[in-house]
């Protein structure tokens, strides 16, 4: 048992007396509100920082993580091969993919498989971009679009039709046969005019 230390109450310095405020005089009293409004008046001549959002939309950062898009090959075939790596990478389990086999009659993507069902639940998605990193064919990328609010949970589960990029000039809506080469290798290794074209390998 140790003895409690001797605490003397007068160890702290005595409280300092504030000096009384200097009298301002009549003119000082009159100008006091003006001095108070000085900040207000000065701000009137500063540049306005407010963004007029709905009227003029400022562009986001170029690599902003916005809504996803499912890309296409130049002939319109889908790049998604239904491998589900995006769904596996997703930390929020927001992506649902079901792959299916391409046939010669019904071809959606070059190669064996395509994504038959592709859904992203935007009420789960945290826009981290891990799905983009996981995608082996660059089929899934992100746009800068961010106006996603909706009043129904069902409508915020985006389906493949909503996510697929629109058909550009020269693109043809799948299913159709491969236009850019004989095999899927032509799509991935330098295009149809590449060294592997016509080799039959």
């Amino acid at each position, binding site marked *: 048992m140790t003895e409690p230390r001797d605490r003397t109450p007068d160890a702290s310095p005595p409280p300092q007396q504030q000096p009384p405020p200097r009298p301002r005089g009549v003119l000082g009293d009159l100008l006091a509100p003006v001095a108070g409004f000085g900040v207000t008046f000065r701000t009137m001549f500063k540049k306005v*920082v*407010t*963004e*007029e*959002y*709905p009227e003029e*939309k400022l562009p*986001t950062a170029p690599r902003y993580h916005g809504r996803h898009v499912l890309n296409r090959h130049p002939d319109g075939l889908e790049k998604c091969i239904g491998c589900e790596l995006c769904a596996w990478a997703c*930390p*929020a*389990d927001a992506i649902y993919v079901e792959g299916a086999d391409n046939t010669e009659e019904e071809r959606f993507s070059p190669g064996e498989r395509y994504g038959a069902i592709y859904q992203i*639940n*935007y*009420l*789960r*998605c*945290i*826009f*981290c971009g891990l799905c983009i990193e996981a995608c082996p064919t660059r089929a899934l990328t992100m746009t800068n679009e*961010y*106006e*996603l*609010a*909706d*009043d*129904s*949970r069902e409508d*915020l589960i985006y389906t493949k039709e909503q996510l697929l990029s629109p058909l550009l000039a020269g693109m043809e809506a799948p299913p159709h046969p491969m236009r850019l080469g004989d095999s899927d290798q032509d799509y991935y290794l330098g295009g149809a005019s590449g060294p592997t074209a016509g080799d039959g390998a």
Partner: protein
Amino acid sequence: MGLEEKLPDGILLTTLAKMLNVARKNSLWPAQFGLACCAIEMMAVGGPRFDIARFGMERFSATPRQADLMIVAGRVSQKMAPVLRQIYDQMPEPKWVLAMGVCASSGGMFNNYAIVQGVDHVVPVDMYLPGCPPRPEMLLDAILKLHDKIKAAPISGKTAWTTVDDSPYEKPIVRDTRVSRGTA
């Protein structure tokens, strides 16, 4: 609450309903319910750069009695659910709820026992806003979409359901009965 709930929605009162809805939409006072990181973006919306005062919403209310719109910003834990419901019950009709961010909307990446999987298990939600957290423009966009919804609302301004029993979703597991005893 008052007379407007007993009034029928007819041809006679459409102009009145429109006037009321324009008034409601242009002075929507938000009740802050900031629970996590989304609240930071909500504060940014209140600041000068995004300036929610442009839409008549500058007064973020710390009292639910003088609020029309509850912005639930952040993840709602099971323990917080009865508190949220009580705040909602204390707001006067007509009232709206905006679920800001994926956690409030659906639980987001926190799919576990501690987090309410969407604040619509507890209160009726009028607008869901994805994002983690949503950027301030997204919140403004959600508010503007809610304005459009309010403009088209009937004269009573009533939402689809107001009690948990009417909720189309699974009921929350409310363990803390201390808070909900007074209102239940």
